[in-house]
């Protein structure tokens, strides 16, 4: 995979609308298959995504294709993503699938479900090190979700219905 694709993907993905505060994440790799591109991050390179202070609300959902309750609630995140304008709300689906299942499971899933939200892969095996950095109360089970805008950060280690999710979103919008 060429460096060019990696960097261009990142800049498109994470530049804010007016370009006031561009947060460029360095992907360690990019999986590409069937027209789907999944950038891969270790925690250090992923971390800046949790604290972008550009006034946009970000809904960051930790999930995996093998996690049944995660897959059940995914359409609600998709609905949030399509319902709210891009410059107000951004949904990022952080997959914790194993890297060797990206091409066999994750990409086919994204194609089949026609996932429109941004999907990234967090691939950092030293989970005991990074789980507490996402949130000190997180046990590490998924689904888990962060909803944040600037300095307001809410963390949820639970499943959502659509109404519950939208209610939580509106608290920080």
């Amino acid at each position: 995979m060429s460096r060019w694709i990696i960097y261009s993907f990142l800049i498109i993905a994470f530049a804010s609308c007016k370009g006031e505060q561009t947060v460029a994440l360095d992907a360690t790799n990019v999986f590409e298959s069937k027209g789907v591109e999944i950038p891969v991050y270790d925690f250090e390179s992923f971390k800046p995504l949790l604290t972008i202070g550009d006034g946009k609300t970000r809904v960051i959902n930790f999930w995996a294709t093998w996690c049944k309750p995660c897959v059940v609630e995914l359409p609600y995140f998709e609905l949030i993503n399509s319902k709210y304008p891009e410059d107000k709300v951004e949904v990022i689906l952080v997959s914790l699938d194993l890297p060797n299942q990206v091409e066999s499971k994750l990409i086919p899933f994204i194609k089949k479900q026609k996932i429109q939200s941004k999907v990234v892969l967090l691939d950092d095996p030293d989970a005991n090190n990074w789980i507490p950095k996402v949130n000190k109360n997180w046990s590490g089970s998924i689904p888990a979700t962060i909803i944040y805008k600037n300095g307001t950060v809410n963390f949820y280690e639970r499943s959502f219905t659509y109404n519950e999710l939208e209610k939580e979103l509106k608290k920080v919008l």
Partner: protein
Amino acid sequence: MKTLKILVAVAFVIAVSAFALNKVSVNKIIKGYSIGDVATDFKLKNIDESYVSLADYKEAKGFIIIFTCNHCPYSVAYEDRIIELNTKFKPLGYPVIAINPNNPKSYPEDSFDNMKIRAKEKGFTFPYLLDDGQSIYPQYGATKTPHVYVVEKTIKGNVVKYIGAIDNNYKDANAATKKYVEEAVYALLKGEKVPVQITKAIGCSVKA
């Protein structure tokens, strides 16, 4: 007007109590054991149709209790390492006891029959028990698979000494630089304090 006030008050009380109830049930699931707590014994069905309790192991010095299952890729990634733990530590007095906490209705792949098949395929050398009725895992506080509890047998009972992950690399055993469970058991065998008592890990949520 007065009726309205009463109605509002009643609705408020209901809303508050509903919230409180909700909170209690959530806490009950998540709390579980802390380091130093005495872990409950159990009598659960093994894949060979016998029933296994910790009390059956008269010679054991403690146990490596691992909540794990068939369907979870993280559990599967650790299977060889779980076998290895039993090979290494059963002779030293710390056998592995694996418990599948999932309700097979939620995950058919985790049914009792499929547990038998998986244990045979992988050649499990340790009991692989079904938490039938999902009554044991909430007492321990296991939230995901794999989730390990190392307990030490004392006169008080089986005291929890370590809670968390097997090591610090789920993808590659050879790349793991911290073998938490091994280090815990070695420390206990030497009568020393467990160096790292609690770790966090990504795992598949347990489903009742």
